């Protein structure tokens, strides 16, 4: 089953990325290097920024919720889980455009929209990890006068380190592969997220070979993160 639904298409993509018109070649990767090296860096940068933004909001809010469980806030935090990517892209573009023209199509706008969408997933994973921390540690910290932020920073985050790492990897990988939000918010010029380039090569040019090479590069980027994840799982 795994071979049929994952390994076979993956293998077909890898083969396609090394061939053109029936010949084995590295030309597709050369095209990626010449035309899309900047986009690879841009994609990694946006994904990293988006992940950082997600954590900048999720960690303090989840820390606060760990100590003062409040249903409505927790529910609000998880709402993005149920909002489709396309809707997030469209809604934020329409929301920002009148006040901040040009922001939604910038790298910061795309990273922020990705962060908004991933807040729900981060909240789900982080709250679970934070709630797994024994209450006695929090009590002890509080007795020494630590507030919510201090307890989060010095107790919850270090103790939930492995869960934080796994959450970061999942979110980073998801952002690397994001398509709908950049498509809805981005512009037709300037640096592009990698999946937009894949779509362009295939959709506009019917160039499956270069699209596959771009896909393999994305696999490699995501698999770097996935290796860390698997090591965590198997430890």
């Amino acid at each position, binding site marked *: 089953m795994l071979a049929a639904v994952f390994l076979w298409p993956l293998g077909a993509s890898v083969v396609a990325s090394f061939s053109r018109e029936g010949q084995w070649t590295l030309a597709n990767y050369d095209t990626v290097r*010449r*035309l899309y090296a*900047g986009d690879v860096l841009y994609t990694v940068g946006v994904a990293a920024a988006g992940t950082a933004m997600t954590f900048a909001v999720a960690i303090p809010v989840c820390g606060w919720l760990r100590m003062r469980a409040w249903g409505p806030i927790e529910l609000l935090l998880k709402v993005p889980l149920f909002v489709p990517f396309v809707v997030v892209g469209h809604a934020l573009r329409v929301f920002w455009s009148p006040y901040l*023209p040009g922001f939604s*199509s910038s790298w910061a706008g795309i990273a922020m929209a990705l962060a908004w969408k991933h807040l729900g997933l981060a909240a789900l994973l982080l709250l679970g990890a934070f709630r797994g921390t024994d209450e006695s540690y929090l009590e002890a910290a509080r007795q020494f006068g630590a507030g919510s932020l201090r307890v989060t920073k010095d107790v919850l985050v270090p103790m939930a380190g492995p869960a934080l790492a796994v959450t970061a990897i999942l979110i980073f990988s998801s952002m690397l592969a994001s398509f709908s939000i950049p498509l*809805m*918010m*981005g*512009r*037709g*010029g*300037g*640096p*592009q997220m990698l999946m*937009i380039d894949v*779509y*362009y090569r*295939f*959709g*506009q*040019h*019917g160039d499956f070979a270069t699209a596959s090479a771009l896909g393999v590069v994305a696999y490699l980027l995501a698999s770097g993160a996935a290796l860390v994840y698997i090591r965590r799982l198997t430890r």
Partner: protein
Amino acid sequence: MLLRALGLILALIVPASAATRLNVAIGADVNVVEVHKTLLGPGFRAIEPDVELNVVGTGTGEPASRAIYTKIKAQADAGRKPWDIDVALVSMAVASQMVKEGLLLRYVPQMKNAALVKGAEVKEAFGVTVDGYVVPMFHNQIAIAYHPSKVVAPPKSFDELAAWVKANPGRFGYNGIKGGVSGVGFTIGWVYWKTGLYKELTQGPFDKAKEPAIREAITALRDFNKQAIITNGNAGTLDALNRGEIWMGVVWIDQLVAWKNEGRMDPAVTPALPAPGLPIYPLYLVVPREAAQKETAARYVDYIATPEVQAKAIVERFGWYPGVDPEKVLALITPKSRDLLFRGVSAQDLARYSRQMPLKEYHDLISLAYEEIVR
């Protein structure tokens, strides 16, 4: 793309009760799908009551046509016969590729209205001889739309356009080459203007020695773009125009007309076609080589190519330019429709400044140069 292809498969296996089922795949927007469902299909059934049309839309832009190509190619590669698409509406690029790969039927000669299928674009597309394989459902022109309140004298040429953009930075927009074909068309129009090689780039033969001139033109476009807004698509340009963010932009005339008809666009926004012109990009009706209902498919396209149908459904109802002989079709439309159709861009403008797409090799060179130089 896979989801689109899956959707297409599911839609095409739905059983129909009529004696002959005609599977029609439309690689265009929902309004085009609706024309087939509500106007052309019922009109055809009035002549041939035994035919049931199964009309399926595959989306918008080039990927919509690619979904149709992918499906037909897969059936051809698998050796399966007959194929389950009888009539398809595809872009110029995809149609030329399908002709090249032997996937289409040469059905036009058997049509009663074959003589009305005329023009350079039905002979060659991207350097491929498509004569006899394609019938444009309608023609679609790329143009510069502008706000008359902001642009007192619309540019009559690319020289005037470049000067206006320099004097009004941030007020001209188009969608680059990754946001849709109107941006690709503008880029190609720019290259025709800068290089003066229209004839060579469209008629060939391909000559790699033309590359430096193309790259020089694209380098100039990079500088031009510094004063322009790159929008996120055809709709994005119209939206920016409508909101007054830009005062001039590159649009599809049919989309501009459609938005105006739907009340989504400032009716004052007007198209113009500057010299030496911009590409016209028809959507072709084609019949796959192994279609199950080849004869009926050809008759359906023949019906759509009838001047009366073109006049009522294509021109008067939607404000599109006719797909077949305009002399025969435009004689049948009302003066009001004629005025709407040619407001801003006259029939003479179209005759003089509608440009063909270049040979595929030049098209690829231009795209590559844009990606390398402009980004």
